[in-house]
């Protein structure tokens, strides 16, 4: 049975993706800085849970060593932290670092920790949860946008680094409150989970380096 690590596993997207992957036969590990919430989410879907702060590289590496190797990684930690921080030039510079640590370095830490196991196994799939703001910077979240842009291009670079090892890396752009309102959807977590499950499956064997928009076309407005 293949193992998948889902960071932000107790979150709205993380837990939905976990539920969908359990249905596909994955052994799912939900990792979240809120360990209690991760336990509850895991119990509900038949997964296991750990407490994990993705901004702590040593902790992520320990988790990967202890619970890995993983055939799958979904980086869903961070949620929309920083997305509505407000105008950049009115922000407190002391608030920028936390957004970068969670939204960009959290993904770097997770990929770096899980990749050695995938490289050794000569296979693996990574799905990075980015955001449409990474392709089109948003004035209410300039730092968030910068981080998500970074995650999208990191995904592309990792394809080049990982292709010889049989590892595929893709990014997903889930909706945001605006796109949900526009498409009159209450929640897009199940749709995002469906796409994540597809990208981690053999059906997507020839899909790597893709940035897939699950915003119901919001970015076209």
């Amino acid at each position: 049975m293949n193992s998948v690590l889902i960071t932000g596993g107790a979150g709205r997207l993380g837990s939905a993706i976990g539920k969908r992957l359990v249905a596909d036969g994955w052994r799912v590990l939900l990792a979240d800085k809120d360990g209690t919430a991760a336990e509850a989410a895991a119990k509900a879907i038949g997964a296991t849970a750990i407490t994990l702060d993705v901004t702590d590289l040593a902790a992520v590496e320990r988790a990967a060593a202890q619970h890995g190797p993983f055939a799958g990684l979904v980086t869903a930690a961070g949620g929309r932290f920083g997305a509505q921080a407000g105008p950049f030039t009115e922000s407190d510079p002391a608030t920028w670092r936390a957004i970068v640590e969670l939204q960009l370095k959290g993904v770097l830490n997770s990929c770096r920790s899980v990749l050695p196991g995938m490289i050794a196994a000569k296979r693996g799939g990574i799905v990075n949860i980015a955001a449409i703001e990474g392709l089109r910077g948003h004035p209410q979240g300039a730092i968030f946008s910068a981080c998500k842009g970074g995650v999208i291009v990191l995904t592309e670079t990792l394809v080049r680094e990982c292709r010889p090892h049989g590892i595929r890396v893709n990014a997903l752009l889930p909706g945001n409150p605006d796109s949900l309102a526009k498409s009159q959807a209450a929640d897009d977590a199940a749709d995002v989970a469906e796409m994540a499950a597809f990208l981690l499956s053999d059906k997507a064997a020839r899909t790597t380096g893709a940035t897939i928009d699950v915003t119901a076309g919001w970015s076209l407005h």
Partner: protein
Amino acid sequence: MPTAFVTGGGGALGRGIGRALIDKGWQVVLADLKPEHAEEVAAALGAGATPTTLNVNEFALAKAAIDKAAKDFGSLDALVNCAGGTMALRVPKGTLVENDPEHWDRMINVNLFGTFNCAYAAAPHMKAAKRGGIVNIASGAGMRGGPPESRQSGAAVYSATKAGVIAFTQALAQELGPHGIRVNAVAPGRNESRAKPLAKMIEMQQSEEAREPGSGRASPLPRPFGKPSDIGDAVAFLLSAEADYITGCCLDLTGGIRLH
């Protein structure tokens, strides 16, 4: 005479940008981590160039240097975030898994926080004047992932930070547009520099190609690599009245390297 503050002003790109701006009538403050580099470029550019020392990682220093430039020259009309261009060179070659995470912070601090710090410090001067221009130096790597394995140096994080600069540019353009401030980015590709003159660039490209066919990327144009003046001309254009309706863009200056 309008004043432009150019970070990384002591480097090859900073010099190209300084030259182009001075030729168009700008007063240029060249800020560099290495005082001797800023002084050398300022001396070479002559009248209109003023060197200063700055570590863009430090917000308080960036604010003090930019405030001083605005005070000394009476206005702060443009900011060019060019520091960090050579960061990748000082990061050992390797993949995300191989690189030392300490190097990630070096690139994140200069390329992202350096840009944030200086933009934040410059914005109040421009808002007060109800006009201004910011050009962030991104990279072709920030538009389509890092270079292939044969010549990467911290490529995964370097390209991520440059993509961050592009998305930040788009966000800031929307925020500052109502104040009459335009914010754009340029994405240089492979350029000649002091350390890598044309002959060296051609030699590198040929050895990449020999090692891994297809990896030695060059422009489809007769001139295979860019020059600092290419970047300078583009920056001077984006800061000029001719570009008055251009904001939030990232101008591809790779000479078409990204097309293959």
